[in-house]
């Protein structure tokens, strides 16, 4: 893949910066920033409201973005893509609208040990609210999801299996079709949290077979505050609205109200048009690079990272040992140097990494580590970034002395 760093104004303006925290949020290419400005300069009005031309332009911009993003994610029915603020709101939408109308006392909800808090706490709290059972599928010794255990956990009373496409903490890529088969065999809804999947892998919503798939725009080169969830039409039709307000209604009477058609039924209030057109520009940018090329580039970086970081004494990498089995995320500890000490020392060299529990406390507890350092890669990273990380880690090791403890 060509070197795209110059497409990203923040990176181009900071040549000394080694940005390795894309799993938290990605940098934005010029094309995305331009699309947002262009929208406000040429088409800004409240969509769906006015009969005037400008409002029509805003409506077209908004739904044009929906169509482009749905196509990018492999969903033929664009009106089943509901825009939200991101994955967190998407999961809350499902747990609230679908969950409270479909999950009852005595039912079971199954999640996995790998989940981000958003895909863990939301279902845990639904289970507590309705009196359902909340079960967690554990990992095998090698750090993969234990599918045998999952088969046993997903019983006839299981209503939903919620799992991540890619683990944000370890980079593990889950076997989505296999998990979907297990869920569907029991008649359960299969929900895939794609926050870490959509930015890095070709999704193909229709082919994956999941009932719902969520994503966050800001992790895939788009702006913050926009994301969505694609849900099968059958499920959306059976769900009550998530929020009430303008746009989502059809007819409002004194005593009752009827709902607008999809996707409006689930999008109350003035929509985030700038976010949608920004995200549209982002997926166009990714499409032009080619998602297969993006994946190949990240595998190269992961392979290089596993080799270079693996060569540092005392460095322990969590999760899968091959680049094929993981996304561009490498989570590690270095001797007994605390991850926060490490990230401060790396920061001084301009290396941005995440240190902490990565919003996955239940996973960290199971791995028996309090926290780790996480380096995550994206299209603009190069092997030189990995080398800068390794060099900075060695410096940190020197400062702290290898002998202490």
């Amino acid at each position: 893949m060509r070197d795209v760093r110059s497409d990203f104004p923040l990176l181009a303006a900071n040549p000394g910066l080694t940005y390795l925290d894309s799993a938290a949020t990605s940098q934005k290419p010029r094309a995305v920033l331009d699309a947002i400005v262009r929208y406000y300069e040429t088409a800004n009005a409240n969509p769906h409201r006015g009969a005037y031309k400008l409002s029509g332009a805003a409506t077209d911009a908004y739904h044009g973005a929906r169509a482009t993003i749905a196509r990018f994610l492999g969903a033929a029915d664009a009106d089943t893509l509901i825009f939200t603020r991101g994955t967190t709101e998407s999961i809350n939408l499902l747990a609230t609208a679908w969950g409270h109308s479909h999950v009852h006392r005595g039912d079971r909800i199954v999640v996995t040990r790998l989940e981000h808090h958003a895909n863990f706490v939301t279902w845990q709290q639904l289970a507590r609210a309705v009196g359902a059972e909340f079960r967690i599928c554990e990992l095998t010794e090698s750090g993969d999801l234990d599918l045998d255990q999952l088969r046993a956990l997903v019983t006839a009373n299981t209503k939903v299996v919620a799992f991540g496409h890619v683990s944000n903490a370890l980079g593990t890529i889950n076997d989505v079709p296999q998990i979907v088969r297990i869920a569907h065999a029991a008649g359960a809804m299969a929900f895939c949290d794609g926050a870490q999947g959509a930015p890095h892998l070709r999704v193909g919503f229709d082919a994956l077979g999941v009932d719902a798939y969520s994503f966050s725009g800001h992790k895939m080169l788009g702006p913050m505050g926009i994301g969505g969830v694609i849900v099968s039409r059958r499920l959306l039709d059976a769900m009550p609205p998530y929020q009430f307000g303008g746009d989502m209604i059809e007819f409002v009477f004194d005593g009752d109200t009827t709902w607008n058609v999809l996707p409006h039924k689930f999008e109350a209030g003035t929509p985030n048009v700038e976010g949608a057109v920004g995200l549209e520009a982002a997926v166009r940018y990714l499409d032009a690079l080619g998602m297969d090329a993006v994946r190949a580039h990240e595998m190269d970086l992961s392979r290089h990272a596993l080799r270079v970081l693996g060569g540092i004494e005392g460095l322990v990498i969590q999760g899968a040992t091959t680049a094929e089995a993981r996304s561009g995320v490498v989570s590690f500890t270095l001797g007994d140097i605390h991850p926060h000490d490490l990230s401060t020392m790396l920061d001084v060299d301009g290396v941005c990494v995440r240190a902490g529990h990565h919003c996955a406390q239940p996973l960290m507890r199971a791995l028996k580590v309090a926290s780790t350092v996480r380096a995550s890669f994206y299209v603009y990273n190069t092997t030189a970034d990995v080398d800068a990380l390794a060099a900075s880690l060695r410096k940190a090791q020197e400062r702290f002395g290898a002998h202490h403890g």
Partner: protein
Amino acid sequence: MPTTADRGAGLSALYQERILEHYRKPRHKGAIERVTGVHTVKNPLCGDDVTVAVCETDGVVADAGFTGTGCSITQASASMLMELVRGRTRREIEALQRAFDAMLAGGEADDSLGEMRALSGVAAFKARHKCARLPWQALEGALGRAG
């Protein structure tokens, strides 16, 4: 924005030998004989925790000890703090805490802080202020419960 060189100097100030020494060989780490107050504070961001136990007699902290896991800054801060507060009254400790907070805010390091002045380098690293403060918060709780 500070240059990398400035930040490099800042790093040497942050991780000076005095701090690393306390981190490697913390003083007063472990249980104390008689406890009049004990309190645990956790930093949810990194999972670190510090427990401070004190023994107050005749209006002064006669003994203090800490336990817990954490980064070099938390550990060194706890180790130095336990030394600093021995023989002090609550009023004196409150004054010390104000001096410490002023130092973290970028002010002069007051002589009363003794060895803890070595933590003045933390001021430049905002993300780490919480680490340096954690033992103080635990101490505050331990004294709050005491007596």
